[in-house]
């Protein structure tokens, strides 16, 4: 038996989306533009 975490600690679902819909919204070019080099 495992302990249940407090309800307040559980992530809450605030919205749901179809992954298929989201994939259709992806930009044509998905490679991110890295335009400066301070952080690697």
């Amino acid at each position, binding site marked *: 038996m495992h302990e249940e975490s407090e309800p307040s600690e559980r992530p809450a679902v*605030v*919205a749901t*989306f179809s*992954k298929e819909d*989201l*994939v259709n*919204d*992806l*930009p044509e*070019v*998905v*490679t*991110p*533009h*890295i*335009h*400066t*080099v*301070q*952080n*690697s």
Partner: protein
Amino acid sequence: MRYNTLGIQVTNTCNMACPHCITDSSPSARGDLDWDEIERAIRSAASHVDGICVTGGEPLLKRELTFGIIRLTRELGLRSSMVTNGYWSRTRQTAERIMGELDAAGLDKLAVSYDQFHDRLVSPVSLEQLVQAGAATSMELQIQYCGARQDTAYHTARDVADRYDIELTTAEVLPFGRGRDLVAAPVTNDVDAVPNEPCGVVTRPVLTPEGELFTCCGPARDADSTSPLRLPAASGTEVGDALGSGETSSILNVIHNHGPRSLLDQLSEETRARVTENLRDTSMCSLCRAITDDREAVAELNASLASEQYRHVALAAVLRQTQDTLTTDTER
């Protein structure tokens, strides 16, 4: 959106004063983070980032802090990286000793800046000694070149990268920091010439020696006080909480997913015209700063993007997954 790497800018001081430096670092620049600030920031940020990058200034001028960060990053199970100008590789012996120490401390990746400005202090021989010493370790190595790719330094960087089979990244000089005096003003404010692509820098936040936290490790440091690129760490908020607030920002997620150009469509005609007039050049960074520094533009964007906030966050997750899959496929 999920952050990639938190940059810890340990110092503003650098033993070089490159004319393209976006952080205005130089031998006379002052300002360091102290260990208590660094440790608190890294522990607080650990659940929000995949890695920690030590940056500057030149991090190895603050050797104790730099090695402390690498060890703490390893202890927390995060990926550690560092950006250096490589000044310490003037002899083969020194290059091998320092590379060995970085490897033993747990550094996963070392990026060396090398271009027509950096090669005034770091010779092609020094660059090769550094890369050769690094090739004997388990570290990933990268050469970071900034400029027009038409100079001797680019060919040196390309040659060394090819011979040791390491990554060479290139970037343009940006009109920010000291680079503002180097980049010629645009002949036209041609917003259509700005690349229309996702931004890979907005997920690389940086903590500066002044205690400021920016969601972008690019040219954000003199951003307007209300800019969404500026996260509220300076007001006493824990770095992790500040990062958390940025993760669900509609503006930041749209910049991550589609780039700043896509934000223009959400602006009124008057605001769009003003933003376009404020372009410093046709880089994505210039457009991003022109939009995010404009308080009316930010207010208009917050109003127009609010209803789709969670969709932008969800799309960021799908995009990141797609990008990670492409990276994995390329590495195979």
